[in-house]
């Protein structure tokens, strides 16, 4: 499965870069993250609950950052497995300074999934993945704003942790929206 997209952050490339390397922020932004820690140079270990339609369960795996070109680009390699199957992905992330304290993030990658996740969740996974990414970006947007203003005010940043439930609810909404779009009855 190809994962591709772009998002505009309100911050400098350096700020966005740092945000993405902060395990506390990242685990707040990704739903169902039970654990995320740095276990070696540029190697993170994570445990996450994943739910795609009827398929749910815990995934554990590693995230490795390579090809670092601060603060412009890096490569992310993810490998995880759990009861619902496995996933393996490689992607490139590019940060571009858009001026006016704005940074665009482009990401493109290939994710391979297997097991129950692929067999039963295939129909849903595209929408679920997009929904998760979009929600994560939304939270990261807020986190970035909070971090920038906390820095300016010289206080500790306070991140709102996303609840798995809110996440699941939004994913479900996105799924339904997608189905309605497909059947052409979105506005009815």
């Amino acid at each position, binding site marked *: 499965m190809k994962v591709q997209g772009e998002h505009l952050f309100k911050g400098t490339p350096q700020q966005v870069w740092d945000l993405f390397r902060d395990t506390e922020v990242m685990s707040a932004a990704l739903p169902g993250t039970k654990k995320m820690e740095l276990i070696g140079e540029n190697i993170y270990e994570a445990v996450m609950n994943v739910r795609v339609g009827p398929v749910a369960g815990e995934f554990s795996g590693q995230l490795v950052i390579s090809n670092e070109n601060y603060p412009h680009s890096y490569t992310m390699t993810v490998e995880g497995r759990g009861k619902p199957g496995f996933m393996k992905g490689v992607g490139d992330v590019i940060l571009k300074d858009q001026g006016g304290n704005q940074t665009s993030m482009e990401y493109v990658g290939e994710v391979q999934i297997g*097991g129950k996740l692929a*067999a039963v969740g295939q129909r849903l996974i595209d929408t679920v993945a997009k929904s998760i990414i979009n929600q994560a970006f939304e939270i990261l947007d807020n986190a970035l704003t909070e971090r920038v203003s906390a820095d300016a005010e010289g206080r500790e940043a306070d991140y709102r942790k996303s609840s798995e439930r809110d996440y699941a609810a939004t994913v479900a909404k996105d799924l339904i929206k997608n189905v309605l779009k497909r059947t052409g009855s979105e506005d009815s």
Partner: protein
Amino acid sequence: MKHKIIGKRVKRVEDPRLLTGGALFVDDVNLPNMLHAAFLRSDYAHARIKNIDTSQAKTIPGVVGVYTAEDMGDAWEPGPPLVSPPPTLENVIFNSRRQVPLVKDKVKHAGEIIAVVVAENRYIAEDAVEEISLEYEPLPAVVDLEKCLEPDSPLVHEDLDSNLAAHLIQQKGDYQKALATADLVIKKRFHLDRGAAAAMENRGLVVDWNEKDQHLMVWDATQSPIPIRNGMASRLGLRTHQVRVVAPFVGGGFGPKIMMFYAEEMVLPWLTRQLKRPVKWIEDRRENFYATTQEREQIHEVEMALSREGRILGIKQKIIHDTGAYDPYGLTTPLNTQSHSMGAYDVENYYSELTVVFTNKTIVTPVRGAGRPQGIFIVERMLDFAARELDLDPREIRRLNFIPPEAFPYNHEIIDQAFTDLVFDSGNYLPAYNKALEKIGYDKFIQEEQPRLRAEGKHVGIGVVPFIETTGVGPYEGARVAIEPSGKISAATGVGTQGQSHMTSFAQIIAEVLGVEVEDVSMVTGDTAEIHWGTGTFASRGAVVAGNAVNAAALDVRQKVLALASKVLKTPEDELELEGGQVRAADIPEQSISLGELAILANPFRGAVEPGTEPGLESTKYFGPAYGATAFGVHGMILEVDPETMMIKIHKYVTVEDCGTMLNPLVVEGQIHGGVSMGLGNCYYEKLHFDESGQLLNASLADYLIPSASEMPHIEVIHENTPAPNNALGTKGVGEAGAIPVPAAFMQALENALPEYNLEITETPLSPNRLYELLQKKERNK
């Protein structure tokens, strides 16, 4: 011979039980003290197992045991090679690699079994499966039929030099010579994809080793109970009498349930002997998608040489057949393709090269049609393309090439799936073809309806395709028929029943021969306690091979009845008749004796049975044909395609079937209906999507589409009868026929409905999406 009961539309005697939930299926078997198994199956299509840790799973309350290949010790051995390569052909390469009970080191397809949990119930067993931890080393998967033969391809079986499973060439005449004289040569490449058999009842097993009785009782949703009994006994080091296998009512077989031995069939009997408790496992739908065999993926490079007039001078083809991760079923399926790629036509020169490859996908074995739909698809599509090139009517090119009735028996000079000569025993193709054209209203459709509907903006098309089917192959089947003291008849045959109405149609044969009512005959199928020898229900052979064994046994019993009655009634045998459960003198009806009384006399409690005779009115007979009986038929359809949505509606569907003598037309029609439904699945709905890592992406009935009532057209079935010359009943098989020509007819109709696109469809199944892509491609090239 004029029949009174054979050939009548007798309602199925098994239906009341089936329709009221009174029939026994494997899942209905529940024994005291019974345990339940669940399997850990590989998520990966190709991976090395580094470590398996079952310790956590074993701690769950209710878990009785967790086992891996290592635990099986010496009992671990691959399944048997079911079908060896053809011994009569020269220069055959065949690398036999068979499925294993539990994977030892390397997983070769997703869904392969790595460990089994036995627990007090299935819930606990499934939960415990999730607690087994596994370390894999994922390997690149072998998926593509052509790339897998490239030198740098990963290997499914690392002890082989390549992924080549088999290679052979069959030919008749001299294709090169034919090519030299040809006016037209057409070359096309075809890709036919995989589908599932998707029987409504998944596989299932209940095994019960009784230590005191030293006996293994097995209920197995199999098409082949006797070979399963033989194999289980031999794998466990038991005598055959120590194992009884019952295939009770089975909810659809379609071929995959003839595969032996599935891993589960190797693991469960071993488990029950270890645990000395009954163990049950019922396959769930997702397991079925991974673990139950599939069929149909082949790539064909085809050449057809023709004369200007449209006469086929020769056919040449190279077939690549995907056998999946193992090849236990030998070459049955692709040999069928080879022998059906000449269709119903008189082809003098034929060259057919077969390459079979291993891939990291589910094992391939016959699925209803078994290689035949591919062969018919090839030859019928090629004729459609040839007719277009030569500016001939598609009907004319077919009429020109049919094997004429006087040419039978027609020897094709190659071998078929049974390794015997491919001889078409009988046939009369032209009248059947003309009848189908007449019934579908071909001329009227082309001349009036199609132009009218096109003017209304509707895209309607017609397709009519003839086909042949080799049926009723050996080796043999048997039947036992006995008259009970009550006068009722008990009979048994070794073939299992998966919906074929054996209990009715075989009973009709016996009722005809012994002069009783169908209801007086109790037919047992699929129980090894009732008959010792047999092979199974497959290859459209029940009515031919088992049917004729039933007939032979019934005739032998009739002879015994006549001999005994002649003495009792003091009337010569040839003046006796069997009617209404009585034997009577033909001209003096009151001089009679009932079959029950005769049965009692034949089993005396005192005195002596005459030397040279046997007690009872019972007989066991076998039938094995030298070569098969060739059925044939024609399917025609009128369909409409909506070029906006690509949805299809079939307005009319006509089949002409010739399966020789029909035992029961209702049953024949039922088989055709079911077959057409499967065939339509193979045209437009049922495709298994594997990704490049060997992951099946639509392993559920929500994503894998099976035609349902709303996709099914009304089907008109017309019967022709060219009796099979080589069996007493004159029967030919019809179980697979319905599925065989459907994709060929469907694509012809689809092209006919969309003439402005000038489509040349060389693949199946299509789908609305795929048809859209094909039309877009044509649009761009316009």
